[in-house]
């Protein structure tokens, strides 16, 4: 469609704005905060600590020889990226309404910058994963790591698609923000983060892997902890993520003209 080619070109023209807005988002987030970037680690670390206490002391879970901290953190870091990025994206337009209603620029810059700012947090959190792996003497720099860029790309597509839909809908109905907060909470437990996939009944797995995050998390674990290629469930995740990205972007572009009129 020529219109969408134009939209991409315009976004490309505004890549400097995207960069500037991402930097702004990161700077503004950690201005007047004592811990600054440490918060990027504290959030997944605290959750992992809680789950470690519960699932090693109270209800021991079999994680197939992987230390629970490593098991949980390797999933919690990408999950935290997804959940914080989507939460920020849903808010990205509404908190900047004064800008949206006064100045023109491609509106997707705001939610995409919100996601990119969280990508930085993800990078920080991921570097802590390395430290944990070193601590447990886990082999790092395995050949299987070549799959990492692919997995991250699939996850980015999924976040973008869901986040763009959320951001656009939240302009029209503020309920969307609360709905997404609730949805993310449920989604966390529908994803093999605190428990291994082995506890999911065999006959329900096909349904379970319709959750693209299940395939993505399993792929991260396979590559990082098992030094293996991702399972075929990643293909399902990739297809769903690609569909979400296309749907999200088209929906966003379709309704974007109305944003400024809805202050």
């Amino acid at each position, binding site marked *: 469609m020529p219109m969408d080619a134009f939209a991409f070109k315009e976004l490309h023209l505004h890549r400097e704005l995207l960069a500037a807005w991402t930097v702004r988002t990161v700077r503004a987030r950690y201005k007047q905060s004592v811990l600054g970037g440490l918060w990027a680690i504290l959030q997944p670390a605290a959750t992992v600590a809680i789950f470690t206490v519960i699932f090693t002391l109270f209800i021991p879970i079999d994680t197939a020889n992987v230390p629970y901290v490593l098991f949980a953190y390797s999933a919690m870091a990408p999950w935290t990226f997804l959940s914080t990025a989507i939460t920020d994206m849903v808010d990205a337009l509404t908190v900047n309404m*004064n800008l949206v209603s006064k*100045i*023109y620029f491609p509106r997707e810059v705001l939610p995409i910058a919100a996601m990119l700012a969280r990508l930085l947090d993800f990078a920080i959190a991921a570097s802590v994963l390395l430290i944990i792996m070193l601590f447990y003497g886990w082999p790092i720099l395995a050949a299987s790591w070549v799959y990492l860029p692919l997995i991250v790309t699939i996850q980015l597509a999924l976040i973008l698609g869901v986040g763009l839909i959320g951001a656009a809908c939240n302009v029209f109905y503020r309920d969307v923000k609360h709905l997404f907060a609730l949805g993310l909470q449920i989604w966390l437990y529908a994803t093999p983060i605190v428990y291994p996939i082995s506890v999911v009944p065999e006959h329900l797995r096909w349904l379970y892997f319709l959750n693209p995050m299940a395939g993505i998390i399993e792929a991260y674990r396979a590559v990082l902890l098992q030094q293996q290629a991702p399972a075929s469930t990643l293909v399902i995740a990739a297809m769903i993520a690609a569909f979400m990205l296309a749907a999200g972007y088209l929906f966003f572009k379709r309704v974007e003209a109305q944003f*400024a009129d809805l202050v």
Partner: protein
Amino acid sequence: MSYSIRFDNVSKRYRIGRGLPSLRQILGLGRAENPQSANVHWAVRDVSWQLAPGEAMAIIGPNGAGKTTTLKLLSRVTQPTSGAIDIRGRYAALIELGAGFHPDLTGRENIFLNGAILGMKRSEIRRRFDQIVDFAGIEQYLDTPVKRYSSGMTARLGFAVAAHVDPDVLLIDEVLAVGDYAFRMKCYARMNELRERGASLIFVSHNMEDVRRVCDRGLVMYAGAKAFAGTAAEAVAEYANVLRQNASRSAKEANGAGGGLAQRRMTHEARITRVDLVGEDGHTRRAVISGEKVSLVVEFECYADVEQPVFACIMHGPNGELVYDTTTRVLGLTSPSYKAGQRGCITYELTAHLLDGSYTISTDLAYADLSCYYDFVANALTFSVVGGNRAKGVANLWANVEFLPPTPVEATVIDGDSHSKENGTQILQI
């Protein structure tokens, strides 16, 4: 005609009132909303105009006239409901003070952020950075968060960035009002500079002095429609007339509903039906050249016999000061008598020995004994005077200056200068 902006039959409709739109409406599916519905508001309706490169046009009008909506349409913040807008080249818009600034970031960071929002590349901003800082005059505050800036400093920085994007079209809402006089003058100088390079300017302001100073063209808007388009001076004058017509319309409606407006004692046995200012060619004039002869034409209809009424012509100046007030009685004239059902007309030929500014004319028709008015129209029309010299005040006294050749000071003046000598003598006598 080559244009830099074309505004072609543009309308903009807003939904008003409570209630959320349905998903179907958001996606633009299903039936369109009834345009006549009470739930919609036409902020701009069927407006067309063009602007050539290098021209500056002011958009003036009361609140709710559609000025800001027009700027938002031009800057693509919002899409027109119907019609087409075409802008050639890069534009920069300054619609609200501090929009595009992040309060927690420093002035330096915000220059880059705001420049990026306006579509500048980082390298371009870096090249113009010193100019921007210098123009805004904020060197010492570059590393202070913008939230600690005064509103004047914020406005200066906002204008400085927008004016250095090198726009082909610059759109400015009333953001300069908060700047001090010196800064406003600096802004106008910069606008002129941009215009000389071929940039066009759209300027929204309530300050009529600024409008006349900055713009050559004027567009008067009222209730979303184009009420008048012409030169800036004409538009300023016409704006007052547009306001008055609408005020009198609503006053009439209020009267009809028994509103009981506090009126002067008017019998309305005769009514003034038309007040106009015409040039020597007989055409309506709202922009008058200083020193020019113009005629005030007052037409009226009589509903009862009117015996030798007294006519008055009253003029007020730009600051509401009385400039001129005369009546046929003061002039020693005896006016004719009129019968019921007759129509009359009186013209006052006036010589506009006035300086630049807007002037307002009131006129009335009174009983011969001045006990009552037949009719009194306050602020019947406003016109502006242009082309006076740059003297201040209201009256153009056409100063004719002559220098006598210099002569040496004479030695005969001993105690003080010659002017105080006489006074000194008088004091001694007392």
